[in-house]
């Protein structure tokens, strides 16, 4: 019973909250640029509109193009649901592991990359190639960062990590976790096609990455892909919020109101992180594609230094 309730809650939270950070990031950027910007909930409307439309699929494509939106959506949703929105109603046997989390996301990306190449258009192939390169570049940073977190928690299972981080109180005061956090922010920017790596707002052929891969999709398929992307971003933000900002101000409030308050706190953390990402986006310019390795190198050294900072005192 508790398990079912938990998963229902998780999936609902993921589906409902996922488009929110994107709206927040766009709003922050707009405000920084002294524009009014689209409403906070614009993405919800876009998704609803797209979901009502049927998809147009080219005859020159295979089943991959048709399957990809569903795979992307499913894997992203799975990953997003794996990150607890609140730990209040944790089931007894809680499945979930950080390594599984990243590899589920990687499966989704694999299909996305394939679908980009499926139609045979040059832009889609270019986008896929770039996406594959970026993910390969940030992978070491991600894994080493994961390693650091795992060293702290002595496990990579999600509940184990969460309880270890909660026990620390304020993990960002640990230099090693602070560095890993910064590394993960960079990973997040790269993974979710944010500005220094990719510009989600552009459709300029020479620079786009994510948009190039979904160029062939339309209607419902596009909606699923966009929703999948939003869920992926939600999942990564939730990871940051859960691992690095585990502080729960309403820990004392019991019962259903407590759960609701905890969810609100979680949403606030998400918004805060979105603000951070929005600020980074507003403050930086898109990197030349050949400078992305530099960014990846920085993310990697951040993670690696994080591990070192953990190992040096010899705990």
């Amino acid at each position, binding site marked *: 019973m508790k398990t079912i309730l938990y998963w229902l809650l998780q999936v609902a939270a993921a589906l409902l909250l996922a488009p929110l950070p994107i709206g927040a990031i766009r709003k922050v950027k707009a405000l920084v640029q002294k524009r009014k910007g689209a409403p906070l909930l614009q993405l919800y409307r876009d998704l609803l509109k797209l979901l009502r439309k049927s998809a147009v699929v080219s005859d020159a494509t295979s089943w991959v193009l048709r399957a990809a939106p569903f795979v992307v959506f499913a894997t992203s949703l799975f990953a997003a649901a794996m990150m607890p929105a609140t730990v209040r109603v944790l089931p007894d046997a809680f499945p979930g592991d950080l390594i599984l989390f990243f590899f589920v996301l990687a499966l989704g990306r694999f299909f996305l990359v394939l679908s980009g190449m499926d139609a045979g258009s040059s832009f889609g192939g270019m986008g896929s190639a770039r996406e594959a390169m970026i993910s390969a570049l940030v992978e070491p940073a991600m894994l080493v960062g994961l390693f650091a977190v795992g060293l702290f928690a002595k496990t990579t299972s999600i509940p184990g990590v969460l309880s270890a981080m909660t026990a620390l109180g304020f993990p960002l*005061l*640990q*230099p*090693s976790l*602070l*560095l890993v956090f*910064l590394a993960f922010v960079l990973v997040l920017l790269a993974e979710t096609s944010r500005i220094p790596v990719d510009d989600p707002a552009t459709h300029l052929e020479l620079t786009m990455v994510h948009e190039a891969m979904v160029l062939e999709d339309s209607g419902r398929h596009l909606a699923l892909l966009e929703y999948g992307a939003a869920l992926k971003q939600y999942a990564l933000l939730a990871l940051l919020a859960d691992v690095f900002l585990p502080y729960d101000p309403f820990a004392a409030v019991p019962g259903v109101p407590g759960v609701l308050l905890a969810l609100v706190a979680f949403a606030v953390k998400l918004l805060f992180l979105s603000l951070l990402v929005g600020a980074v986006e507003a403050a930086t310019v898109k990197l030349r594609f050949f400078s992305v*390795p*530099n960014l*990846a*190198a*920085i993310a*990697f*050294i*951040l993670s*690696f*230094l994080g591990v*070192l*900072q953990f190992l*040096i*005192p*010899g*705990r």
Partner: protein
Amino acid sequence: MEPFSVVLSALLLLSAFVLMASKRIHSYIGAFRVQAVLVALNTGLLGLTTVAATGRVDLLVVCAAILALKVWYIPRVLHRTYRAVEYRVEKDFLFNIPTLVLLSLSLVVVVFVAVSRIGAVQDGTTLVLLVDSLSTALVGLFFLISRKKAIGQIVGLLAIENGLFVTALYASNGMPFIVDIGVFIDLVSAVLILGVLVFRIESAFETTDTDAMSDLKG
């Protein structure tokens, strides 16, 4: 206080890496300034602790000097020098930037190994502090070696000095006051002299690329 020092030291090391990864002279100076702020914070923090413990204020004086010189004055001098002599981005490095950054990372590991062999450093926190600050100095040295523009080399020298100063701070709660002040005077005069030299080099060679200076060999 201690957890803050550890975080600050980690950020200091990070700033050295940011410096290493930057390409534009402007970002060098910016990164150096951030580093200097971190050094000042560290000094101020330790200074407050010593004032509370022993009533000695010399570290606070040094902190003020850092703020005045390294955060405000030296970056200004560097900017002015930069504006007067060149308008270009650094593009020739020893290796490309990711390689440089990864090599710097291995420097940190080397420092870790070396410092952990000092028998007297038993305490884990001290070890982290020393490794971080010494690595900052050595990454600064590596930065100096890897840059070919004159201003980059000046910034490298300053970065070494930053790391060194913090090492002194952590290793022994600061040096005798007169030594601290003497080091400062030396530093400022060194930067001024280097600044003047940059101007002269620019007018003699019409570039500040130190690779152009290769007449003297053997």
